[in-house]
């Protein structure tokens, strides 16, 4: 039977926030990943494009072999789903660039993440990208910054 595990779609900014150790952002995203992998609270869906974009800036120091291995491993973890950029998703992404041009400067890569979220019927697209965030309430999926809540809020 099809499960009711929540699907949260992520774009690449969340992973970069973790790798860069951006204060509260890294902590929030780490908890979300942790709850996906270790506690199966939800599934994080990412476009395969994220594995391309999750790289260091040009001119940065080289990563060690172990770090490269770790980067590759993140996309293979349980409850981390990588959705390939199919022609169907690409077609939608192209349409979104035009459709939402009055609301945000949506670049093709951003549109791919949005199309992926809609394609997998995600409950939310989580991102730190301001242009994508502008489309919350306009696109066919909720868009917000990553949010982590404890399993039982009353224990807070």
């Amino acid at each position: 039977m099809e499960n009711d595990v929540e699907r949260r779609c992520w774009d690449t900014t969340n992973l970069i926030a973790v790798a860069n150790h951006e204060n509260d952002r890294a902590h929030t995203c780490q908890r979300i990943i942790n709850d996906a992998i270790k506690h199966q609270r939800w599934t994080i869906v990412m476009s395969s494009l994220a594995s391309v974009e999750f790289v260091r800036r040009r001119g940065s120091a080289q990563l060690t072999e172990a770090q490269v291995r770790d980067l590759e491993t993140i996309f293979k973890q349980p409850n981390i789903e990588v959705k390939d950029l199919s022609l169907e998703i690409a077609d939608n992404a192209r349409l979104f660039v035009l459709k939402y041009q009055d609301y945000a400067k949506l670049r093709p890569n951003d549109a791919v993440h949005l199309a992926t979220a809609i394609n997998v019927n995600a409950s939310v697209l989580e991102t730190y990208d301001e242009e994508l965030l502008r489309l919350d309430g306009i696109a066919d999926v909720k868009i917000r910054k990553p949010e982590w809540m404890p399993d039982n809020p009353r224990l807070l």
Partner: protein
Amino acid sequence: MTADNEVSLSLDAGDAGVVEAAAFIKATDLLLKALGAIEDSVARSKPQSRILNWKIRELSYRSPAKLCVLPETKAAECDHDRAEQLADKVVTHFNSASIYVAGGQGSLNIASGAAVKHLKELSTLVRKGGYRQISIGSRGTMYQIGSHQNLEELSETPVQRISQGSERGVVGSINVRSGMKFKLFNDSFGWIVDVTFEEDDLELVKKSLGRRADVYGSVVREPGHRPVSLTMRPGGLRDLPTGPEEAMDLDRLVGMWADDWDGTPAEEYLRMVRDGE
């Protein structure tokens, strides 16, 4: 079981004012067949393993004769939450199928498509049985069926899309008797994908039995993205980490390249990556 999941059937005999018992029984039978077919599809079970029983909640025989049923679990030992979720899904898919048959609107998936054959047959009572109107519905909304102009042409199978891609899951149930096949169990979404592969890859598939893997090839999906089947391309199977020794220590990801970070927010950092800066 929640009362929200009630399913209704109504037969309006029009001026005649009398609903024939045979027609009412036939309509009831078709309604239950439709609900049963959806349950089989959603639960991937056989008719004899069904756990939902439909109990009469309301029944009136004067035209329009009305039947209202509610799901209950058959077996007392059955997990209540699972049955509740199943009932919820069955009624949701029944609702989709009702909308589809009533007006040719919306799209089918495998579960709602399972009911269409029976609901189309139900509509023949309108045309052949002389009834003015037959309505079906759930959760308080009724849809009139039988008036759709091109009912015969309505497809009973969902429109499927085929694309190149991959699916992830646990490899299981290898079958070599009627072509080379195995089932891929996606634990996250509860999907079971039927995978066909070439004989040359049998050893590769056997080695992955019981392991998590990515399978690459031509994927057939129903509307709503659910994968149905996959034709694996030669060698298109890659094992994924299963043991703790292969699992990633998340702490290593945090701050992995913070040594090179100058405080640029992630969204700006990504723009620089994309611009090749």
